[in-house]
């Protein structure tokens, strides 16, 4: 399978199954519309006649020869033979956990998928006892995995920070005896960040996700305090204090864009202008009836906006600056292995979420969906059937993904979005797919330009 597209005056050709990326000229681009394997030694006469209206015959034949050469070397139209790996893979150890340390929040963001913090289940804080059980569960279920990931999530985790500290201390105390290394992360709206918390987070957390949507008017329209006033002024002041002392540890400022700010490249640039260079801004996920929801009719605008964002980021780079935009990150030479790419995030199989009640779900987005409740820490229950279902959920078990060029980049998309908006974890959520594919084209283009620069 191949995928080709035009962007920024370049034609890009992706060989899906090998991951090969090529820059091609217009003749090759058009010729590929007319030919497919197996290839004869000579270009078919009918194709030459058709294309000779626009191109010299000698060039067409030359292009054909180059395509055939790459095909013969198994660099183009390579076969998809990964399904055997998907079918033989067995359920994995659990190595990552999203710990819902607080089902409560001090903001009332309009688009919150967690029903402004409580996931529709009432406002609650996790006790240390439940957190300890979660750590024990993760250690026990992680088998031989050395690195264990634990994300403190909410609601707003800083509302229960003493318990965060206790859980970190407990987990660290068990690392040596169990041969494990915990990698803690935290996702926060920043409202309660202070110097003590900043010190602790910088010491203990390998990554921090700081929620902010961008420009003040954009952020404050959706990310409101309980009183209804905006959160921008306070969080910007806290984040500006936090990031410079972060050292070499990872962080992202992470925003959500909605129908209200389809010009979101301005928000990315605003965040950069504030002094942040690790940035993720993502489309809101919402029922189409919500006024802020992104719908099919917005897609053309969004596609153009990603191209504008690409231009802006490249311009920053030309001027000696740097923006790391999460969804444009891609390593075309040494990204994740093909096996990793078959299953995506690993939710429900190697990744679970735990609520303040000790309930276990496949991930934070499934919390509250009873059908997918996997068990409870207090009761000592865990539904292996659900885990096995997720272990068997991969790009080859999703009909729309099988034939999609992007399957080894998004790995079948978000199972929760598939379930919530497309009715089944195996159904593609088409709106997400459309946006994902455009982001990938921009990401591939950006990396291709980088590699070309390096060669020159």
């Amino acid at each position: 399978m191949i995928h080709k597209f035009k962007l920024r005056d370049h034609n890009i050709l992706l060989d899906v199954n090998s991951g090969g990326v090529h820059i091609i000229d217009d003749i090759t681009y058009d010729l590929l519309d007319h030919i497919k394997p197996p290839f004869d030694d000579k270009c078919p006469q009918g194709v030459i006649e058709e294309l000779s209206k626009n191109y010299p015959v000698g060039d067409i034949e030359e292009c054909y020869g180059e395509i055939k050469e790459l095909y013969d070397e198994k660099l183009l139209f390579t076969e998809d033979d990964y399904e055997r790996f998907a079918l033989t893979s067995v359920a994995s150890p659990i190595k990552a956990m999203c710990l819902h340390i607080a089902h409560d929040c001090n903001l009332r963001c309009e688009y919150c998928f967690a029903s402004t913090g409580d996931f529709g289940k009432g406002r609650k804080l996790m006790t240390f006892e439940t957190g300890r059980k979660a750590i024990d569960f993760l250690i026990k279920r992680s088998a031989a995995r050395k690195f264990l990931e634990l994300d403190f999530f909410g609601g707003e985790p800083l509302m229960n920070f003493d318990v965060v500290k206790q859980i970190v201390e407990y987990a660290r105390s068990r690392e040596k005896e169990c041969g494990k290394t915990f990698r803690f992360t935290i996702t926060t709206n920043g409202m309660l960040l202070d110097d003590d918390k900043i010190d602790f987070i910088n010491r203990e957390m390998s990554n921090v996700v700081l929620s902010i949507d961008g420009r003040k008017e954009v952020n404050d329209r959706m990310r409101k305090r309980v009183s209804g006033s905006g959160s921008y002024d306070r969080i910007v002041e806290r984040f500006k204090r936090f990031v410079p002392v972060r050292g070499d540890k990872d962080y992202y400022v992470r925003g959500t864009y909605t129908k209200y700010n389809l010009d979101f490249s301005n928000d990315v640039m605003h965040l950069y202008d504030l002094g942040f260079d690790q940035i993720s801004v993502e489309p809101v996920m919402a029922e189409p009836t919500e006024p802020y929801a992104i719908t099919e009719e917005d897609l053309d605008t969004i596609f153009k906006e990603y191209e504008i964002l690409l231009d802006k980021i490249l311009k920053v780079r030309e001027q000696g600056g740097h923006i790391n935009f999460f969804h444009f990150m891609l390593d075309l030479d040494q990204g994740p292995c093909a096996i990793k790419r078959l299953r995506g995030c690993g939710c429900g199989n190697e990744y679970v979420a735990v609520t303040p009640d000790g309930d276990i779900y496949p991930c934070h987005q499934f919390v509250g969906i009873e059908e997918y409740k996997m068990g409870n820490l207090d009761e000592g229950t865990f539904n292996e059937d659900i885990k096995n279902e997720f272990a068997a959920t991969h790009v080859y078990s999703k009909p729309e993904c099988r034939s999609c060029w992007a399957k080894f980049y998004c790995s079948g998309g978000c199972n929760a979005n598939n379930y919530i908006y497309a009715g089944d974890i195996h159904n593609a959520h088409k709106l997400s797919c459309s946006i994902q594919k455009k982001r990938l084209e921009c990401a591939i283009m950006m990396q291709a330009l980088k590699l070309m620069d390096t060669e020159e």
Partner: protein
Amino acid sequence: MKHIKTINKANLKKTAEKGGCGKCQASCQSACKTSCTVANQKCEKDA
């Protein structure tokens, strides 16, 4: 080649044979939390 410029190592096939060690990060934990982009994760096989 005159018409096609290959710009990376097309090595996905090779990674399948020796991959699957499971050491790399669960992708959703890194920044997104609402979408899924796996290809931007790092391989941590030798970490």
